[in-house]
């Protein structure tokens, strides 16, 4: 009886937390097609896996590769960006993204030296490392707090107060860096230009004159939306309107 209950519980847990087998099947079929050089079929299989609600970094990464091999740089970058949002330590996605950026002639903006020092953990560590650091420091803070209640020695208690203050400050520091990184990764309202060649217009419509050209793979910031037009801004400060169909939100 007990064994049956355990089996049912495990089956239920699997059904709740695991993906249907088809997503993994599509992923494997995509890999096989890619290895065979059939990149269009690979893309189609990976997209089917995505339609099964999979949000895996490797899946996005492989889809990006398939698009790259199909010479669709815009969608390739879009999927590398999504792979990095799913796992910002995905080394292959980072490398391929760097290659695309290099091809597009993009450069990293240099942060102010003071900001670089203050945000050193932000620049140096992944989101998970920051989260684990914040959790670890918070755990140490809790232990120090608990020890304060248990240990009667006055000197040790004073030392624990200072330790707890330092741990609290460090927890806040790493926690804030984690939150900033999380916000930037998941709520920054960015999009990738997927149209091969398009232009930003001075207003929301074809009747407005084009103000600057855009090429596939460029990353833009979405400012506002009006009907089928989106106002975007580039990191250089240029701003304009473009058709919603020419870009895709990350």
């Amino acid at each position, binding site marked *: 009886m007990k064994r049956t209950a355990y089996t049912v519980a495990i089956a239920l847990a699997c059904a709740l*937390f*695991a*993906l249907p087998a088809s*997503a*993994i099947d599509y*992923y*494997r079929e995509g*890999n096989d097609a*890619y*290895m065979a050089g059939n990149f269009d079929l690979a893309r189609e299989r990976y997209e089917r*896996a995505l339609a099964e*609600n*999979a*949000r*895996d*970094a*490797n*899946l996005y*990464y*492989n889809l990006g*590769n*398939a698009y*790259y*091999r199909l010479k669709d740089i815009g969608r390739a970058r879009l999927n590398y960006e999504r792979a990095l*949002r*799913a*796992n910002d*330590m995905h080394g*292959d996605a980072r*490398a*391929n993204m760097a*290659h695309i950026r*290099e*091809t597009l*002639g993009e450069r990293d903006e240099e942060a102010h030296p003071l900001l670089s020092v203050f945000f050193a953990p932000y620049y140096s560590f992944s*989101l*998970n490392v920051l*989260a*684990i650091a914040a*959790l670890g420091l*918070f*755990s140490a803070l*809790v232990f120090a*707090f*608990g020890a304060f*209640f*248990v240990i009667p020695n006055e000197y040790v208690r004073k030392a624990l107060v200072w330790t707890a203050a330092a741990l609290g400050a460090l927890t806040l520091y790493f926690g804030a860096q984690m939150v900033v990184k*999380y916000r930037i990764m998941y709520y920054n309202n960015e999009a990738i230009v997927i149209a091969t060649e398009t232009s930003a217009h*001075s207003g929301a419509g074809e009747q407005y*004159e*084009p*103000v*600057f050209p855009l090429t596939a793979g460029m990353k833009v910031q979405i400012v506002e939306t009006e009907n089928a037009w989106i106002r975007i801004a580039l990191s*250089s*400060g*240029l*701003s304009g309107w473009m058709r919603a169909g020419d870009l895709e939100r990350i």
Partner: protein
Amino acid sequence: MLDEPFTIFLAAQGVNIRAPEPDLSAFTLLSPPTTRATLELNRDTGRYERRFAYSYQLLPRAPGLFVIDALSIESEGKTYTTDPITVRVREKDPDAALSFYDPKGTQPLPIVFVETVVSKRTVYVGEPVYVEDAVWTRYPRTAPQSKAKDGGAEGFWSEEIRITANAVTKERGDFVYETWPILRRVYFPLTAGQKTIGANEYIVDVMNRLEEVERLRLSAQAAKITVRALPDEGRPAEFSGAVGAFSFSARVNITTVETYSPITLTLEAKGDGNAKGMQMPDVRAAIPKHADIYESKTFERNDCSGGRIRGTKRVEYLVIPKRKGAFVIAPITFSYFSPSENAYRATESAQIVITALQGEEPSETLTARADSLNALSIRHIAGDTKRLSKRGSFIFFYSFPYVYLFLLLITLGAVIVVKRESLGTKGFFAKGRAKNEAKAAFERARANRANGENDGYYSEIEKGLSRYLTLRLHLPRSASKETICSLLSVKEIPKRTLKKLEDVFEALEYARYTPAKNERAPLALIKKAEELITAFEERL
């Protein structure tokens, strides 16, 4: 000119001098005067001298002729006087600020304008044309806001160049301007013919005489460019399409290698010109037939720092020798068009000699690797996996950090509660603990009674009752019976119960020294104590 700001300077040096105040009532003072005053030791006289410099930024209020009176200062009994200054204020040209800047000088110079400077008006296809828009201003405070409109340049491919220059002061006509570049771009013409680089428009904020920010829309100038086709005469068959001045090199990562092991051959062309779209020479002809070659990685970049554009194109090849012995990578020719010399130029890489030693037979892995690198610069796909994530890898997307935090805080809470309980002062376990301690004491009392130890019997009853009450009333263990009773009276315990408690305490005190009336009397005492605890349980 009316509405045009100007500055007067006042400077003096001497012993015990005071700065005179000029009469500037005919003008609007744009901002408080800028002052600089120092006290310096004059080494010739050995005395301290005061040195000051004042500058006043002024704006004329009306046209006409105005005189700023002569100023005097006294030092050591002598008087020093300046000459009076005459300022002629002309009527304002109503369109001056917004008028289009005419580089030929047929129009009056505006107070603020954007000037476009073009490096060359006649160029070859692919030759860089540098265009710079610079703001020129006579307003005291001017701040460029943004580019309002891009002029566009049909038939050109362009790239923006990072600006590092700061504002400088320059003279133009009879005026002194502050000027700084606002945009610098390099344009590469794609086809021959008459082309136009459109005029950009900019939004600029200036501070007017009323100290208000006025927003102006200024236009730069369009540039007409004559683009010539590259000459057919002398065009090499392997022309790369590069226009400018370039150097070219070929190198390998290793010169002694085993057969069927890869060598990386790198070709690099760099120089003043556009690297994008440039074709590298066909390297296959330079490689012996007993070696395979695969293109593995391409890198092209235009470096726009330093005000110029420098293009670099690098292509990496994987060369796999299939036979042992020495083999030569012949010199490779790279040709480009030099606009400064109006001619095609060619440059050659050095010859490379490679020694191939006998190695293992070709493996499928190597071939597969070469195939995967062929015409690709990206990493390979991720392999098989047992499961695909639904939510990404961030740990806070999953429940375990929350469970961990919950358990951590629960543990901390438990530690605090248990510690407080152990101190026996407060908490919801204190009630049970008091009752248990009393119960244990009464058990011991009964055991003592069974063993015939009457003293132990009474003393345990007293201990049990006292301990119960001190725990429940949060009193120290050493609290006296009087203290306990007085605190109980405050807590609205019925007088009858209090009387009963006092009686029990009294009986316990005297019972040790007084023989019991009968067998039942001692047992009644423990029963009364238990009844009291039951009564207190309801009240406390």
